[in-house]
């Protein structure tokens, strides 16, 4: 699977612990549901400890939008918590409509980067 390929399967478990970074067997992955912007609708399970979203090839999730920086926003998992950090993007990261530099994320949060909108699902059914 390429870095930019969407994850269309319902996320459950990845067998490679080096990829999933501490997930317990059977634990479900938090998922970004892209509801707007190029390529939407699609889903990106956040399997790795760190996932960078941007328009550049250095990003783990690449979305071809001129409104995204090459490395726009970082999603980081630490234990049960999920957070985001704006990687000094040109157009910012908006959490539920508020321009955020960093934040802890929760179920149903809306994250907008450029013309791309995600809805976070902490543990999809």
């Amino acid at each position, binding site marked *: 699977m390429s870095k930019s390929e969407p994850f269309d399967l319902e996320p459950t478990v990845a067998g490679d612990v080096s990829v999933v970074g501490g997930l317990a067997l059977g634990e479900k992955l938090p998922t970004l549901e892209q509801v707007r912007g190029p390529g939407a609708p699609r889903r990106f399970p956040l399997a790795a400890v760190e996932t960078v979203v941007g328009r550049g090839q250095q990003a783990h999730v690449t979305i071809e939008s001129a409104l995204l920086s090459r490395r726009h926003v970082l999603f980081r998992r630490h234990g049960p918590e999920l957070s985001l950090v*704006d990687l000094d993007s040109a157009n910012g990261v908006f959490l*539920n409509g*508020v*321009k955020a*530099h*960093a*934040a802890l994320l*929760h179920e149903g949060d809306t994250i907008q980067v450029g013309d791309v909108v995600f809805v976070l699902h902490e543990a999809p059914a």
Partner: protein
Amino acid sequence: MSAPIFVRFWGTRGSIPTPGHKTRRYGGNTSCVEIHSAESELVCDGGTGLRELGLELLQRKQPPRSMHLFFSHMHWDHIQGFPFFVPAYAPENELTVYDPGSGRVEELLQGQMRSDYFPVNFNDLGAKIRTRHFDAQATRVDDFEVRCFEQAHPGRSFGYAFELGGKKIVYATDSELDRLLVNRDETERDPEKLRRLPSELVAFVAGADLLIADGQYTDAEYPKKVGWGHARASTVADLAHQGGVKQCALFHHDPLHSDELVDQKIAAARARLAAHGSSTLVFGAREGLELKF
């Protein structure tokens, strides 16, 4: 372009810590807000959120660390994190505590660490802790200019305005704004009318990039809580609008409010601002959210 200011919410709850699934999103720790730049580490209030901030500071910056702590007042929910603030235990650190009011801030911090309440005595804290008094006149704190103003709260409380490089952050929690209204009669007759606050208070918040303000109650709750020292969200929205505030974070969430109730409070404040044709963005302060200015 000046160095950026970062504002992070470590505790947003009012009155008492409120952990649990109902408050997960906005958080259950009591008041603590960090304001920092490349040169400065400023902390507003030492509620239970201060504990987590202390742990983060240990990771983020090598000692010696210099920190400045501004208390709105000394009620429990604003000081309970202090005994658990790990940087206060390290001898290489310096902590300056600002006292705009009674002159008793250090005494009161010591009081909650008496052996009746806590096993470690204040005087056994390792860091160099000094108290600095200042009044409403602007005071230089590292690269920030700081002013304070008295608020309406039982036992007194103080708000602070922090300015750096043309940016302005105002921290104004625990203030019963409705007791200060200059058009109370008019707004009691017509609740939709803009509630006007005194010009001195409006001037303190004027043009702020961010106003962090106690908006504990809904309109329905406030009549039963008159005199308790807290604001209803709708009056905070009116103050922010009058001051031309760019963003207003409703803070000091009621311990009885679930995340969904806080959402409703914010929606009502936004609707009120829209009705007044305001460009102010109001949102709910939530733990872990960091803004950059």
